[in-house]
């Protein structure tokens, strides 16, 4: 081109030793790491908006039907919910420690912390399962067979629908997270992570913390609604 606006230089030397984890279209590991991290954050934004639609419905009906909300919330077991909150925040801690271990090049510790995280996640899911089962036994599943005694039964059905939608979606994220962590743990076990390259651990950490944050909101929104006004 005669315009001189664009000059060319040789791309990085192909003779250089490549890190085995560097994909061909990136120039450096740094660039790859930054792209992946940014991608994860952007993905989390989409997750926020995803839950946002449901939370919008929650907000509206809570404003409209405060009594029904309190009534519905009394059906939930605050002890189990609280226990699960502790479990999940605990798993966030172990996850953060796993990331730290990977970043500082301690594969054994990484595996240990990851296993602990998965164990806590599993505990959460088991508790959740029993909560659901309880609802099932009481015919508190929205739909044809929904039965509920109380003056606000239809609106309580909306509450329970949102309860299932929100916690169900959250549980689904936990299951997916569990799957991701299994792979990561295996990779950590195979010593695939070094202080130089531990991006996958960091990204799954971000995801796991996000799932934790969702629960941090769900717990008060669903379990702690105006209890005191109902109990008097």
């Amino acid at each position, binding site marked *: 081109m005669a315009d001189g606006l664009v000059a060319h230089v040789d791309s990085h030397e192909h003779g250089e030793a490549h890190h085995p984890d560097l994909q061909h279209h990136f120039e450096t590991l740094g660039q790859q790491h930054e792209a992946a991290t940014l991608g994860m954050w952007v993905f989390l934004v989409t997750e926020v908006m995803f839950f946002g639609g449901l939370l919008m419905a929650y907000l509206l009906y809570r404003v409209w039907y405060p*009594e029904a909300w309190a009534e519905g919330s009394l059906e939930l077991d605050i002890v189990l919910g609280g226990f699960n909150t502790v479990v999940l925040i605990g798993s966030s801690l172990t996850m953060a420690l796993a990331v730290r271990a990977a970043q500082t090049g301690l594969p054994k510790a990484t595996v240990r912390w990851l296993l602990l995280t998965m164990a806590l996640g599993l505990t959460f899911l088991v508790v959740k399962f029993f909560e659901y089962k309880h609802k099932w036994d009481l015919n508190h599943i929205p739909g044809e067979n929904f039965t509920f005694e109380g*003056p*606000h039964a*239809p609106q309580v059905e909306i509450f329970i629908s949102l309860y299932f939608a929100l916690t169900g979606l959250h549980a689904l994220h936990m299951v997916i997270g569990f799957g991701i962590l299994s792979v990561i743990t295996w990779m950590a076990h195979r010593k695939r992570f070094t202080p130089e390259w531990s991006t996958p651990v960091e990204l799954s950490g971000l995801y796991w913390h996000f799932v934790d944050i969702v629960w941090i909101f769900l717990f008060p929104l669903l379990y702690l609604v105006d209890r005191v006004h109902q109990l008097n």
Partner: protein
Amino acid sequence: MLPGIPLFPEQASTLAPEVDNLYFFITAVTAFFALLVVVLVVVFAIKYRDKTGEKVGHPIHGSLPLEIGWSIIPFLVAMVIFVWATVVFFHIVRAPDQALEVYSTGKQWMWRFQHIDGQSEINELHVPVGRPVKITFTSEDVLHSLYFPAFRVKADAIPGRYSSLWFTATKTGEYHLFCAEYCGTAHSGMVGKVVVMEPDDYQAWLSGGGGLSLAARGEQLFQQLGCVGCHLGDGSGRGPSLAGKYGTEETLATGATVAIDDIYIRESILTPQMKLTAGYGPLMPTFQGLVTEEGVMSLIEYIKSLSSTAGPAAPTQASAPAPPPAASDNTGGPGE
């Protein structure tokens, strides 16, 4: 010119000229901008045409004053449109006080209109010219939308809610009535006409058809459903007296106050436990499933009519605007 092609809808309400003037104004403004841009594009395309593709343009990179100008001017123009259109809008949504009331329900796929005096009609609506008419309506199933193009008004009918629209017809004649919100198979068949009549003809039409007045039918229902058993006129029953209640405020068991209006009465009938009146227990059963939307409307109309009768008259004897004597259970407006 092609004969018989209408290019402009008939103006048959007081709102129509308002809406049309706004329309002409926006058309003029936007036509100005459209012409400006189109003319410039055409002129530039021809004047600066280069058949060879060899030449290059002049190095012009932009101009801040121009950018500011063509941001601010359209904005100001848009604000004029905004203010004007909003004023017209509030005329459209705010019904005048002394409007003739008509009730309506939409369901797949017809419109039922219920006049206060008893006539009811399907897919046809008779109204007098020169008098504000307010239609309060709801839907029994899906969304519908009541649309009178000649009057330039429309509003969605929403299950579980009351919507309303109003107009004052200015010309006698017959005009379209459409369902404008998609509602399933026969959406395009959910159409009819509105017949605007001279007031005298309208009166004649009204008396032509028999039928109980809405309030009288409400009264009948009030007995049939057993409301009278609890709601005695003197307040001695298990439920509060409803005489003179409409339009006042009620204190609820929670201490909040609510206005007793159509919506509140509707709620009281369908979900009585939701808002308990102070001083009464949750005794009243729900009538959900036992009474149609129209039934609810006539009950409301009946309770409304109780407000005009002062004193502790027993509700059963409340005098509704006397219906024509030919009171049979079968309403049949001339429209049917």
